[in-house]
């Protein structure tokens, strides 16, 4: 085997033993405590939050899953997508169609809901795969415009394919039911707290988000992630390094679509109804805003950005009385949703100007290892012997 490590390249220059500065596993570093505290808090929240905030949190989790997906495509592989909302719609409506029992006169295969959820994600991936040959031919703004077409096609189908989508009014979402455990409002009391759909879905959402985040991190830090990043940074070098560029671009598209599909399924379950209006161009732009604000190419950045963009309108809605200028919609002031859009529009501009790398940089910058004092810092590439 030619790739066996140890084929001699080392001429002379006795290789010093690799310094393996392994830190002891105990005591754990402060970061570990932070993770534990955060997890406990997230697990305990359903016992303290009312339904409004639980739903807001669930929206944020679904958005985070979708944002991780588009960040792998746009942030890590450099393929601009304005069509993310389309794949969310495929997931949401796909779930309804697979799981629906046809009771509401709409197409429904009546499959077990867990199977329907998996199939909906697969369907979204398939849709991404079908689009990827087009994506493989286009780059940059042209790809963005081509993906925009998906939104228009999607909206047209959602409004007009009545039998499948319910048209303007949308369709009801069958509650998730995994092996007899129903994620709906049927009575369940845990520690004197009645558990409704929001409480139950909260835990499902946490598990899904954690799984999706870990998977994406593994992908991005491993061999596929390195190939995706070089396609973004130096497309020509990528091919020369042996990366089949077209195949990886297609794979990134499929993977990102599957994440969008799952986000769509979760959103549908939380909303309990899917309506076509929601899956428009604004949603696609919101996802782009999330990854720009949070941090392009980073899983944590996608989660932070998703939380910021999806919780902001909820915060403004809940506290509109206390905020200047913001008012209930229709009473003269700026409606909370609108105010939120202004705010994260401003946030996008601010991040692009002052915080390239996104909010997540605020965290990682602090914990980054200290720079070598004897070497120039980034941004000062002084080629001292430059000749030409």
């Amino acid at each position: 085997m030619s790739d066996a490590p140890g084929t001699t390249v080392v001429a002379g220059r006795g290789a010093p033993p690799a310094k393996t500065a392994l830190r002891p596993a105990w005591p754990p570093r402060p970061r570990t405590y932070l993770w534990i505290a955060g997890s406990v808090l997230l697990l305990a929240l359903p016992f303290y939050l009312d339904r409004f905030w639980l739903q807001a949190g669930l929206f944020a989790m679904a958005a985070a899953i979708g944002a991780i997906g588009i960040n792998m495509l746009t942030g890590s592989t450099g393929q601009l997508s304005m069509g993310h909302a389309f794949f969310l719609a495929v997931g949401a409506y796909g779930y309804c169609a697979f799981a629906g029992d046809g009771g509401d006169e709409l197409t429904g295969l009546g499959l077990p809901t867990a199977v329907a959820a998996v199939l909906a994600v697969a369907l979204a991936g398939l849709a991404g795969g079908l689009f990827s040959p087009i994506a493989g031919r286009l780059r940059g703004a042209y790809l963005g415009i081509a993906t925009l077409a998906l939104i228009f096609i999607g909206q047209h189908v959602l409004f007009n394919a009545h039998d499948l989508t319910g048209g303007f009014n949308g369709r009801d979402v069958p509650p998730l039911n995994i092996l007899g455990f129903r994620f709906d409002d049927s009575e369940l009391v845990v520690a004197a707290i009645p558990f409704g759909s929001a409480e139950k879905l909260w835990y499902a959402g946490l598990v899904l988000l954690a799984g999706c985040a870990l998977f994406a991190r593994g992908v991005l830090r491993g061999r596929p992630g390195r190939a995706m990043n070089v396609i973004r940074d130096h497309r020509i070098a990528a091919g020369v390094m042996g990366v089949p560029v077209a195949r990886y671009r297609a794979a990134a598209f499929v993977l990102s679509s599957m994440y969008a599909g799952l986000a769509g399924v979760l959103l549908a379950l939380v909303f309990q109804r899917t309506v076509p209006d929601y899956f428009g161009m604004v949603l696609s732009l919101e996802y782009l805003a999330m990854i720009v604000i949070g941090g392009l190419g980073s899983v944590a950045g996608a989660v932070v950005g998703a939380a910021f963009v999806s919780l902001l309108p909820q915060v403004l809605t809940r506290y509109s009385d206390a905020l200047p200028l913001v008012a209930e919609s229709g009473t003269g002031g700026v409606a909370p949703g609108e105010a939120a859009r202004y705010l994260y529009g401003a946030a996008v501009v601010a991040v692009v100007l002052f915080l390239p790398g996104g909010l997540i940089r605020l965290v990682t910058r602090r914990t980054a290892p200290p720079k070598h004092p004897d070497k120039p810092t980034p941004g000062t590439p002084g080629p001292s012997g430059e000749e030409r």
Partner: protein
Amino acid sequence: MTAVPALEVTGLTVRFAGLTALDAVDFRVAPGTVHAVIGPNGAGKSTCFNVLSGVYRAASGSVRLGDEELTGLPPHRIAALGVARTFQNLALPPTATVADSLLLGRHRLTRTGFVAAGLRLPSALREERRHRERVREIAQFVGLGDALDRPAGSLPYGAQKLAELARALCMEPSLLLLDEPVAGMTADERRRTAAVIAGVRDSLGISIVLVEHDMGVVMRLADTVTVLDFGRRIADGTPAAVQNDPAVVRAYLGEDAEEPS
């Protein structure tokens, strides 16, 4: 990499809208030798590399590596045959660590796909560990052992060029194409890089095609030299013979061929 194949370039012609960048160029690189391609600016040296690595299409002519015809193959298929190259202008992601950049060089030698990487399957972890080890060896070989965990962009320019050379070496190539490997380096870095290239030739026995303006480096390293001017081959032979060729002296417009242009 059992037997290093010979590289045979015949009648290679490349045209860009009205400009003939390469005009029926022939040369042969014997297995395990260092072959230099030199010539004034715009002679077509980088264009030649771009054809050899599949980035540009040739208008006509052939490039054979052993039994394989390279013209018409996409870049990743050529890489799979064991052809590695560096770029005249760095193509090294500035924010990725040196280790990650070198691991990218292992791409063709590794198998981990999306599912295995996402689920961190034992096979993926094992492969990663094995190849990180090899990356460390190669980094130490070029003298970048201490820089592995630093972002490539934070290194001095010369070290970045070395990192790109190391990344190409990580592909375990049988043919290595180096486009001006010492350009922009300090005298000290030049010496070190030349030593690394000599070390590669001596210990790996692979073929190297070297494009370089630094005649000192060319004369020291090359076994054979091809001289291009305006896309045409004007000389071919041993360094000493080429150096005294009147056509070559003329091409460099009377400049002393010992000096870097």
